[in-house]
């Protein structure tokens, strides 16, 4: 979907459980690995390569921990357990509870647009570049399973209605970036930047000046990149490079409106937002995409720095 150019190439070149070290300009060491379906890296301003490697392993194991715990694609994840248990009361741990609380806050803040239960709509919509638009009856049937208000949530007990599912896809990677940075920050006094596939957070800039991050534009035909300077805080990008379908000349992006069950019309191709944390920046991107044509207006009024591509 998007990627910082500083990030390494493709997944196959990396052993799944180790970090690769690269020396970069300006006394920066990069510890690179592949997780969460994205190239990931930790940038450390240090002359000590072994220290960077040790910190990189902390970041890597945190990424894998969060991926294993919250991925809906893994049968042994907490999310799968919750979804399998739909119709019964499931007790969750404190970290999962905090994420569900966060999802609840975001649902409220977006007047219901952001909804972790909307994933079931993907059963009808296949964004493969084709022109297959599902029948309204199919969408209507799935809409009965969508709606955060249909969940019973009282910490630490969650009850989904049978057939419902939740999905932290819109939160997990950004959350992992913030968590990983907090872990390495506690172990080091260096300037640090954690970048998981373009969603990133820095604790402070290196002595030589701000971190320079290239955000890939969501246009497969051009090698057009946007170079951003980051001193500290979070940056996240959302886009729909490959995931769309075209029907009767209308391009449907992959962002689905949980209220209508249809893709949001006129969403930007790509939105990048800067905020205090990566989690917050990522949620602003999602809110903006969900607002379609009003994306820029929303971000302007919220007063956050952003870059929209249409």
């Amino acid at each position, binding site marked *: 979907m998007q990627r910082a150019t500083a990030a390494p190439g493709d997944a196959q070149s990396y052993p799944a459980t180790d970090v690769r070290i690269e020396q970069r300009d300006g006394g920066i060491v990069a510890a690179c690995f592949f997780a969460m379906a994205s190239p990931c890296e930790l940038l450390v301003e240090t002359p000590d390569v072994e220290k960077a490697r040790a910190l990189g392993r902390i970041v890597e194991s945190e990424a894998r921990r969060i991926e294993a715990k919250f991925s809906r694609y893994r049968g042994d994840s907490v999310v799968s357990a919750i979804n399998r248990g739909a119709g019964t009361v499931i007790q969750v741990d*404190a970290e999962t509870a905090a*994420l569900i609380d966060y999802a609840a806050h975001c649902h409220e803040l977006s007047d219901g647009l952001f909804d972790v239960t909307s994933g079931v709509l993907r059963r009808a919509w296949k964004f493969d570049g084709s022109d297959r638009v599902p029948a309204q009856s199919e969408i209507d049937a799935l809409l009965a399973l969508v709606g955060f208000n249909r969940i019973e949530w009282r*910490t630490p007990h969650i009850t989904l209605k049978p057939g419902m599912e939740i999905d932290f896809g819109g939160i997990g990677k950004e959350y992992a970036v913030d968590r990983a940075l907090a872990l390495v920050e506690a172990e080091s006094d260096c300037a640090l930047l954690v970048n998981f596939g373009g969603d990133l957070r820095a604790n402070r800039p290196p002595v030589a000046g701000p971190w320079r991050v290239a955000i890939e534009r969501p246009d497969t035909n051009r090698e057009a990149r946007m170079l951003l300077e980051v001193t500290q805080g979070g940056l996240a990008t959302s886009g729909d490079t490959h995931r769309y379908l075209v029907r009767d000349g209308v391009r449907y992006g992959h962002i689905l409106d949980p209220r209508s069950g249809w893709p949001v019309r006129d969403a930007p191709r790509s939105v990048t937002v800067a905020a205090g944390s990566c989690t917050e920046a990522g949620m602003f991107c999602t809110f903006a995409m969900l607002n379609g044509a009003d994306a820029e207006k929303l971000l302007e009024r919220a007063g956050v720095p952003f870059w929209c591509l249409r």
Partner: protein
Amino acid sequence: MQLKPANPQLRRGLMAASCALLGGTAAQAQTAAGEDQSWQVDAGLLYYKENAGRLRTIEPVVSLKKDFGDQRVLDGTFVLDTLSGATPNGAIPSRKPQTFASPSSTSLTPRAGAKTTLYTIAPGNLPQDPHFHEQRAAGDLDWSQPIGIDNTLSFGGHLSTEHDFNSAAVNAAVSHDLNAKNTTLSAGFNEEYDQIHARGGDPIPATDYTLLERERAQTKNVAGALLGVTQVMSRNWIAQLNYAYDRSQGYLTDPYRILSVVDGSGSVTGYRYESRPDTRVRQSLYWDNKVALGPTVLDVSYRRGKDDWSVTSDTVDVHLRIDVGRDMYLEPHVRWYRQSAADFYHLYAIQEVPLPTYMSADPRLAAFTATTIGFKFGVKLAHTGELSLRLEEYQQKPADRSSPLSQLQGLDLNPGVKAAIVQIAWRQDF
């Protein structure tokens, strides 16, 4: 979402939600780092010392807490304390030397087969028994667990024993969460049973001190109930309101306290054992607020107490917790307390008046104000430990401490108390 004109609320809301998520899990991740931290140990040593050679306490406390998961927690506390020093016996200072017998005495004049331990108080001094020494061992065990989704049940017991006093108590409470856990209602009760067997026997209330009229062990019991509501008022403010009611019945008299009997000029003519009603009903209303001001936490509480002995009290207590760097905190503390006197409290009894049924010169039943000022300093140890030091000064100022009677003029009849408190505490998770 609606696009309202300017929407900084959205930004603030999202920032707050993100901070709650990341802040909360940072703390959570610490405990997840060592999966087996299921025991929490608290150990403390409290040292309390009153001025002028009076009461001194050394109190070691050990508390163990075991979390069995699913919010089922067992909590046990064990206390061993030693009290020693001089304690006021209730009589007032006099212009003449006064001689008293320690409570274990069976006779006021030395004779064969009787035990007599006497102490004499110099003119103008407050009569205090210098032989006071007491050791106490006490233990608490409490269990708490959820019932159903929104309820918590807790119950426990307490036992304590000392040379002249045994106490046993049970308690139980339920709480219910409402409103997405933003509101918690709780209700509880407790029942306490005490045995008082003073050295040498329990005095018969209001009898003449020189007659040493005593009876066998006496008992009292206390039954209480509590209703409370805790409410999350906003993201950084939690308020709690509690109402408590308890009723004591039985031997409520202090077996070691006497009362001076004086004539019309204020000359001491004798002493009586004190005497209190055999029931006491107490009610209190407690309002506590915890407010987070960034990383600093302010805790302000007010308590209003009232009983059917006419003692009403007000307590204002303020704590401020300030983080100093990452691993230390400072917690200044100020407490202000005032109470009115019990309706049978007197500095002394007048001989001419037929003696009232109930009378006491216990300074704890007098009208007074008290202030506590101090601070606590804590340092985090390793990942899950904490070491703290608390230093406080307590000062009690009685409202009524002099008499217009000629023989008592210029004497301080109730000098109040000043005390220093030092507490060292250590906490560690295992």
